[in-house]
């Protein structure tokens, strides 16, 4: 019973991935629909897995590496589902679900880290962390979409089309989907960061508290805003903007891992 939700989540994500692959390789609509349903089942099971663990540890899910990565995977799945429904486009599932599954498994296999003792808790703090991780998930999604764009564009320009090309989303749709994700990421990271400052202010009576994480977050913000701007301009629209989006996510990963673990004073796993 202890691992029920864990097993259910892995099974649902795994089967969803298989269905999405089947959809991509055979074009069968039913396989695509099953992929979506299984992903939704996985999201629900994943939620209960997070809830169960939080109750067991008497803490929110993001106070250790496990919880933080798992929450990231869950929000990535949720964001992708939203995007899939909004744009009515399933063929991206086969490329996104591996990341969801990977982060979930890595979280589970990660060594049991210590729980970071935070000096204060509360709604502002909870939203600060959740919105920040949601922003990372949205940026993660735009990263995957940009990679698909670059691969598909390469195939189209090389005239070496193969079978899969006829099932991939159109290039313009991929660009729009990527930009939608980045907008979600930017909005959530701005609100999340503002809430973080509010929380620091309440805790220490001043916002003038330096953390290298601020710099990393500011850089992420600026570069994604630049991506949104450049993706619509003459010189950058298309492949160049997509490459920038891929680069930006590398920076996000850097901020999420190296900056948190080695430089930041108050950010560990988010």
């Amino acid at each position, binding site marked *: 019973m202890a691992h029920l939700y864990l097993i259910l989540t892995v099974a649902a994500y795994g089967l969803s991935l298989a269905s999405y692959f089947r959809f991509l390789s*055979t*074009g*069968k*609509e*039913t396989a695509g629909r099953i992929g979506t349903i299984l992903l939704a089942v996985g999201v629900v099971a994943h939620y209960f897995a997070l809830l169960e663990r939080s109750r067991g540890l008497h803490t929110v899910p993001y106070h250790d590496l496990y919880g933080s990565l798992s929450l990231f995977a869950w929000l990535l799945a949720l964001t992708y589902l939203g995007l899939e429904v909004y744009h009515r486009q399933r063929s991206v599932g086969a490329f996104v679900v591996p990341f969801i599954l990977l982060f979930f498994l890595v979280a589970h296999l990660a060594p049991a880290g210590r729980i970071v003792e935070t000096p204060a808790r509360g709604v502002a703090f909870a939203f600060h962390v959740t919105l920040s991780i949601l922003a990372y998930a949205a940026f993660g999604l735009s990263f995957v979409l940009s990679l698909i764009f670059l691969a*598909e564009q390469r195939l*189209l*320009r090389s*005239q070496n*089309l*193969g*079978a899969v*090309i*006829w099932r*991939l*989303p*159109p*290039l*313009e*749709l991929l660009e729009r989907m990527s930009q939608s994700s980045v907008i979600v990421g930017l909005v959530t990271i701005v609100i999340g960061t503002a809430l973080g400052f509010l929380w620091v202010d309440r805790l220490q009576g001043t916002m003038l508290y330096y953390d290298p994480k601020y710099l990393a977050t500011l850089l992420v913000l600026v570069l994604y805003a630049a991506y949104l701007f450049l993706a619509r*301009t*003459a*010189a950058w*629209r*298309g*492949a160049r903007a997509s490459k920038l989006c891929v680069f930006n996510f590398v920076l996000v990963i850097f901020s999420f891992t190296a900056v948190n673990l080695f430089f930041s004073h108050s950010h560990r796993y988010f």
Partner: protein
Amino acid sequence: MEIVLVGLNHRTAPVEVRERVSFTVEQARQAAAELRDRGILEETLVLSTCNRSEVYGVPPEDVRQSAGALATYLSSFHSVAPEALRPSLYHHYDREAVRHLFRVSSGLDSMLIGEAEILGQVREAYRLAHGAGGTGPVLNRLFQGALEVGKRVRSETELGARPMSVASAGVKLAERIFGKLNQRTALVLGAGTIGEQVVAQLRDREVAHLYVMNRSGEKAGQLAREFGGKVIPWGEWHEALNLPDLVVSSVASDDPVLLRDTVKQAMVARKNRALLLMDLGVPRNIDPSLADLYNVYLYNLDALTEIVRQNRAAREEEIPHAEEIVDEHVSKFLSWQASVELVGMLGVLRARVREERAEFLRDRMEMLAHFQPQEREKIALLMDELLEKLLMRPAEQLRGEKSLRKKIQNVDALRDLFLNDREKP
């Protein structure tokens, strides 16, 4: 409950014959009504497309006789001599007729295997026939099955998923880049045949704006009227290349008409908006070196032909899978048909058994003379009960077991075994 099909298609008849035997909507309705009024068919449906004219029906009498009458009717309806029409006509009965229709709706019998239009044409023919009261339980079931098979083959196989002609490959490529084309602009250079086919497909996809450019202004005007587009004077490259998302070129020219520098300048003016160039000219109309310009996608006739070749090879692999789906649905339909016929046959058999029992008791009355009337009545009731039990069990089984219905699809054997001609349902 037998099914007859008489018709002709692109494989059995040249276009001169096909066009003489095709039906307009009104003619189809009239023919179906006449065939029923004359007692040639009880249920009727006419399927007429540019590649086939077929009449499906349920005859009241012998199926082969009806097929002959149907062929004669087709000759007279279209005023074509029977001997001129006969070599082109095919006749299919029951299983073969069902299988033929299911292959038609799946696109397996089409000139371009897997084409999507035929399913819509079958649906429309059924809608019209049903609306006019031409179909009954058999054809309703048959055509609903045909639509189901058509949908399944399209969703479960790759048969119609990929473009199979140069024109459709070009348009599908445009959709890979731009998505839906109803807000896009196309420029047509020249007036080659394949170019015209591409334009026809673009119009089917409701391309928002169409511009035409031709060396001959007169010809350009004619094409623009034909395509519903606007003319851009030849040589106005700045305007011509600033507008479109895709360019279809099929100009008769020994030298390229679109040069690298022209397109390079145009890309600056159009702020690097993606541009798809389809060069369908031989010799080529577009300088091949501009394929490496940023956000330019260049496809020539060979590249598009290669896409079609690959897709055809992939489609060949899908045909056996589609045939399996067709066979599965043919069995399903025949199983339903057998069950309906068997239930009808059992009803007739039951009536006959009752008559036999009454006759039997009348003949043996002398042997039963020593029984009291109540006892004789009891014997009659017991016999009825026994006979009912004997007949009820198979009837119940037939209703419940699909596999049993499959096994006894050849009802004729059972009918011949138990009933004489007069009693056949």
